[in-house]
């Protein structure tokens, strides 16, 4: 059975990057797993857009960072932080859709 991201990572979190952006960090525990997931192509701008139901133009960054064995995606917040209509001022609980992403 193909594993889900939650079984492969040591950190998977979301947080504000300034009041207008939300950033998602996916950090792997060992280089082998990291290289395998990176090579699978499953972590991409298109995947992030699909999981969050947004256009790819709202995914500002989707990049790997080898020194941290990490993938980072940054998206435009639905509303600026703490403004009327907010559901998560710190942006700290927006990562869940990534947890169950299946790595083929």
């Amino acid at each position, binding site marked *: 059975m193909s594993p889900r991201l939650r079984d492969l990572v040591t950190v998977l979190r979301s947080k504000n990057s300034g009041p*207008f952006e939300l*950033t998602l*960090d996916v*950090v792997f525990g060992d280089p082998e797993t990291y290289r395998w997931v990176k090579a699978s192509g499953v972590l991409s701008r298109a995947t992030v857009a699909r999981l969050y139901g947004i256009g790819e133009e709202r995914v500002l960054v989707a990049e790997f960072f080898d020194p*941290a064995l990490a993938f980072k995606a940054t998206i435009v917040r639905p509303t600026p*932080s703490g403004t009327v209509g907010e*559901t998560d001022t*710190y942006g700290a609980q927006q990562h869940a859709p990534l947890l169950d992403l299946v790595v083929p």
Partner: protein
Amino acid sequence: MSEFRCLSTIGMLGYGIPEDSLRRGVERRPHMIGADAGSTDAGPHKLGRGVPDVSRAATARDLGLMIRAGKELGVPVVIGSAGGSGAAPHVEWTWEIVREVAAREGFGLRVAVIWADVPRAWVAERVAAGRVRPLGPAPALDAPTLEQTVSIVGQMGTEPIIRALDAGAELVLAGRACDAAIFAAPAIRAGVDPGLAWHMGEILECGAMCAEPGSANDCILGTLQADRFVIEPMNPARACTPTSVACHSLYERSHPSRSEGPGHLLDLSACCFEPLDDRRVAVSGSRYRRTPLRVKLEGSALAGYRTMVIGGVRDPIAIERLDEILGAVEAATRDYFALVREAAWSLRFVVYGRDGVMGALEPMRQITGHEVGILLDVVAGSQELANTVCAFARSQLQHYHYKGILATGANVAFPTAPSDTPCGSVYRYTVYHLVEVDDPCELFRLEMRELP
């Protein structure tokens, strides 16, 4: 100087510095002691209202510990983004606490206060001159928006802090500052490579978040050497590993390997994170490139006044009919208040158990639990109107007669009495922009204050 040591006492002044960790840090004889006191994270109200988001007592305790440690070692203490947002009311609030602490402890202190407030008229001129642009997805800044903005601050880089240290400050109380500049400034002043200094500052400003287990509420030591820096937690229960430190380079930043500050770009793509032992990590390869000098501005405007009520629904028939109920309550409220159309108000329901946390980004919208929580959130042009709209909508929610209703008592359970909570003023970020400046100190006035 063969090495330059910076002690970061905590990720946020007022979170509670652990005294054991601080003592271990002081034993390492750092050349400066610093802490960040601010963030935009908690929302725009801090800047708008001019209020802190940590308690006065907790701030007094942490400041007392830091100032005493600085006195003991004869090294400067640097506080960045004083009072939370680093605008004048926040800086004055912190200054009052410093005065009390110094009086209580009976020591004199040479304090540098660096103001970070930016006048609206100055920003308007720069907007008109085409020298202001939005940072990332922030909307463009126009004259009416600027008119509504109640407070604007600029984020200082290292230069204003260096100037304060040159003036002999024992304590630097900086208004809004780049978090990393708290540590980068004294290091650059000592002749350290700016790439290493800024990168180390970015790691230190969050306290021991870069350790394993991570925590903002603990001390961390950064040691700058010729071509690298070393990160070491002061609490023996924590360890830094190459992954924990590299991973922290991602934290709260848009891009994994690039970050911009006033007049520079920091490029981490060639960084190397090496373990020195099982608790210390050496970092090298942080590259610094000069860019045109731009200062980040932050500003917020009044958005209205809030009244809210939290309730829960346990009736499975009501949960099935929830969309109908909430739609009808909103419609009835709109009808009723059509009479006061000239007064602006808005209403929304945050439904926990459906999409209360992720809102528009939630991919799973069906309710699968046996109960849901409802937050009714009203924002209006006055507190009085917000109270009135909230009370009306809440009563509609209690007694709306939905299809198939059996429970005619009421539709919602309130955990508090009174059910409705007036929350006061609500703000929004209107300014998150970069402005071109000619001099890195021009927005940041230095004022020396002596405590005898």
